[in-house]
């Protein structure tokens, strides 16, 4: 599963640390999320999407 977290984070000038703080997770979790190595819970996906002013559907690219 790919995502646009890095792109949107850069657009809003947020560091991984800032984003982690805003959604209440550790920075490492954001690192793995961006790399597509971690599948977040629906709540975390929603929180990240909210901080990055987008929707879960637009943030995460689901591949068959």
């Amino acid at each position: 599963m790919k995502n646009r977290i890095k792109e949107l984070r850069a657009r809003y000038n947020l560091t991984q640390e800032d984003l982690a703080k805003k959604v209440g997770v550790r920075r490492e979790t954001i690192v793995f999320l961006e790399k597509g190595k971690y599948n977040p819970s629906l709540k975390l996906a929603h929180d990240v999407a909210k901080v990055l002013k987008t929707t879960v559907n637009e943030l995460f690219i689901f591949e068959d």
Partner: protein
Amino acid sequence: MKKEYKYYTGIGAAAFLVAITLQIFWSGIDTIWVSRITSFLTTVGIAFIALGVGRHMIYKEKPEEDERTKKISALTLSYSWIVTLVLVGVLLLLDKWDIFKMTVMQALGLTMFVMIVVAIVAELYLKRKGDIE
């Protein structure tokens, strides 16, 4: 400093102070129990202070755990528990068939060692991997 770290440090300092007070006021009485209690309280005090200050130095205001680390910790404990169960079973059979005998202390020591090592290795591996599949 987070509230829980303050509590740890406070409990540690309190235990340490009680130990020092006991040592001063009971120094005239030569009882083995006073010595045992003060040693215990000193150890507990140092451990709690180290826990509070150490965790503050590592994590500061960041979360200690989140959904990813909680998942990893849960799986780590499962791995550790299963490996230990298998080990205990093997030790039991080896003893029953008179292949390898161990004292109770050796068996408990080995079990604890394996349990801790498996947990540490599994946690390190899963944290590097990023997620549980």
